Structure formats: C-alpha cells, structure tokens
C-alpha cells in the first residue's frame, strides 16, 4: 500500500470532470425532487380519494425499493416503450423521483404545521383554493422545512455515485475508469471517499446555519 502523489496530480483533471457532473446531477435532481415532493404532498391531500390513495401507494412503493433498481428500470425499460433518455437525464429523473417521495413527507409535515386559523382566515377573506395555497399556506409552511429539505438534498448528493451504474460519467465512474486503466485503486477510490467526506462535513455546518436561520417557527 503506497500512496503516489504524482499519480494523484495526473488523475486530478479527470476527477474534476466527474465532480462537475456529480454537482450538476445533484442540483438538477434536487430541483426535481422539490417539485415532485410538493406534487405528491398536494395530491395526497386531494379531495378525490382515488388520487390521494393511488399517489400514496405509489410513493410508498418508490420509498420501499432501491434507487439502483429504479435507475435500471428508467434506463432499460423506458426505451422499450419508445422513450430513449440520455444517461444523465435518466439519472436525474431517478434521483428526483426517489427523493421526491421523501421530500413529500417533509412538505406534508410542514403543511400540517400551519395553524387551522390560517385556513379559516383565508376562507374568511374569500380567497379561492389556488390563492389560499400560494399566498397563505405555502409561504408559511416552506421556511421551517428548509433544513429538512436540505438534509435530503445532501443525502441525494451522497447517492449520486449510483449513477455510474447507468453509465453517467460522474466522479465515481471517472475514478473507476482511471483505476481500471492504470490498475491503481488506492488513490482514485480514496480521493472519491475524501471528496464526499469533506463536502458532507462542510454541509453539517451549512445545516446548522439553516436550522438557526429558518428552523424556528415564530408563533
């Protein structure tokens, strides 16, 4: 077991290429998860019981099955019915859908935390359904959720190496390919681990700050 710094500098540009894709996938996946989660949370509160029940079961199913198999499903099954997706798009959809079912629970708790009086006041002011949501409920519900949402986005970031299984050239895949080319696993694999460790330790600080800034509910 010997660590070669020259080799580290040699492979660094390739790894940085991978880091870019990793970050891109995380950002796009987070945006999608935020939207999908809100959609699921709203659908589960729907008046129509079939919609509410169906979406609830669907979310439960997604949450109970591995992200890796879902990625394979999107990547291999959808082309058979004519939907051909580039690997990165398939990966972002997989991440967004999987973590969307988790963020839906965060939205649900946040919406339930808005006091009843606010709903009644909106009704008293003669606001319709859409206006109640966009002007009264969501602006109060979303800020306290921000730390919990950020927590899931960080978890998603740590799961992005799974995208290498569907040939997305993100950090893990680049590391694997340089490792296989030079048959040196120590440096690339350790660098990937160190990269994720450093980012997640930094994100702990960010989370503390978010909790301090948004976590408290003023009543």
């Amino acid at each position, binding site marked *: 077991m010997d660590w070669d710094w020259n080799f580290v500098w040699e492979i660094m540009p390739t790894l940085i290429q991978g880091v870019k894709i990793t970050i891109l996938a995380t950002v796009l996946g987070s945006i999608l998860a935020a939207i999908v989660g809100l959609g699921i949370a709203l659908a589960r509160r729907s008046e129509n019981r079939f919609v509410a029940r169906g979406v609830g079961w669907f979310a439960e199913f997604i949450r109970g099955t591995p992200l890796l198999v879902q990625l*394979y499903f999107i990547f291999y099954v959808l082309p058979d019915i004519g939907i051909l997706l580039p690997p990165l798009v398939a990966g972002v959809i997989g991440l967004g859908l999987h973590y969307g079912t988790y963020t839906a629970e965060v939205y649900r708790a946040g919406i339930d935390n808005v006091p009843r009086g606010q709903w009644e006041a909106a009704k008293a002011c003669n606001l319709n359904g859409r206006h109640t949501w966009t002007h009264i409920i969501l602006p109060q519900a979303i800020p306290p959720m921000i730390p919990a949402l950020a927590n899931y986005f960080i978890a998603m970031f740590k799961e992005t190496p799974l995208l290498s299984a569907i040939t997305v050239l993100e950090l*893990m895949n680049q590391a694997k390919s340089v490792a296989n080319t030079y048959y040196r696993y120590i440096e690339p694999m350790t660098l990937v681990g160190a990269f*994720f460790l450093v980012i997640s330790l930094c994100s702990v600080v960010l989370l503390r700050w978010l909790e301090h800034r948004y976590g408290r509910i003023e009543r």
Partner: protein
Amino acid sequence: MTQWSGYLGLILQGAIVTIELTLMGSVLALIMAFLAGMGRVSRFVILRAIATVYIEFFRGTSIFVQLFWAYFVLPFAGLSLTPLQAGVLALGLNVGAYAAEVVRGAILSVGREQYEACTALNLGRWQGMRHVILPQALLVMLPTFGNNAIELLKATSVVSLISLADLTFQAQVVRSQTGSTLMPFVSVLVIYFALALIISWGVRTLERRMARGLDGVRV
C-alpha cells in the same frame, strides 16, 4: 412463458442472497449501533471521540463508495475480502453509524428521574443502564431501527456492482439473457417492496409485544 419459470428461479436465488445479506448486515449494524451509541454517551472522552469519528466517517460517505473501497483498496493493504464479506462489512458499518445516533437519542430521551432512581437504588452505572435505562430506551429505538433495516435492505442492491449475485444482479442477468426488460425489473421491484413490508410488519409486531405491560409508564 415456460422459460420464464426458469428465470424466476434465478431471481428467487437472488432473493435468498439479498435476505442473507440483509440479516447479516443487520446483525453487524446492531452491534456497531450499540457500541458506538453507548460510546457517544460514555463519560470517557476517548470513547466519545472514537465513536464520533466512526459515525461521522461512515455517514459522510455513501455505502457505494465504502463498498468499493473495501473491495478494491483493502486487498492492496493485504486484506482480501470476498464480495459477500465486503458487502456485509460495508452495509453493517454504514447502517450501524446511522443507528448509533438512534441509540444515543433514545438513551438521552429516558427521563432524568429514571437516572436519579438508579442512584437512589444504589445501582452501578452499568447495572442502571442494563436494567433500567436500556429496557425503556429500546422501545423508543425500535420504530427507527425498522426504518434503518429497510434502508439496509435497499442498500444491498449496491453489492450487485461488485458481482455478488443478489436480486439486482440476477435481474441484470435475466435482462442480458432474454432481452426482456420489463419482467425482470418489475418482479425484482415487487420482491424488494414485499421484503420491506415484511420488515415493517415485523417491527410493528415486535413493538407491540415489547410495549406490553408498559401502559401508563410511557408518555
């Protein structure tokens, strides 16, 4: 369709490997969770430090990175692991780190008066922990342990990438042999979901059994 039964056998073989991995990983995770969780509330600084480093390290990087590190880098350090050993090791240590925080939280959630009662009864630290604190804390931990076990089950799919023939791996085998994509992936997703349902049902039953006789004691 007749061929399909043979392929279903292949997938069921994969299911057995997945169940084995989940069970062995859970046992290791449970041991690590109690060691690290109790370490976190220890009165010795050195034990607290070791436990904190372990938890932050394994929560900071994803299971995928840890698994690849265990499988590809450790052999260079003279420690060759079979895919099964690497899988159990990575799964157990990773999920154990998450569960350790559950153990810590549950121990701290037991009321102050219980600790004072231990002192009043002249119980030693270990005796108090063993006979008074842990039996109450265990009930608090159980639901979250159930979620952790489901996370572990989902994480086992990653071992297919180091060529261990689990459910996900067998789905890929069937896909490459038959060219059919929908059948293998849907059946595998359903099996994973069924296993997740069994775990959550088992944990609920266990919780009900353990809560027996504690009515009125719990808040």
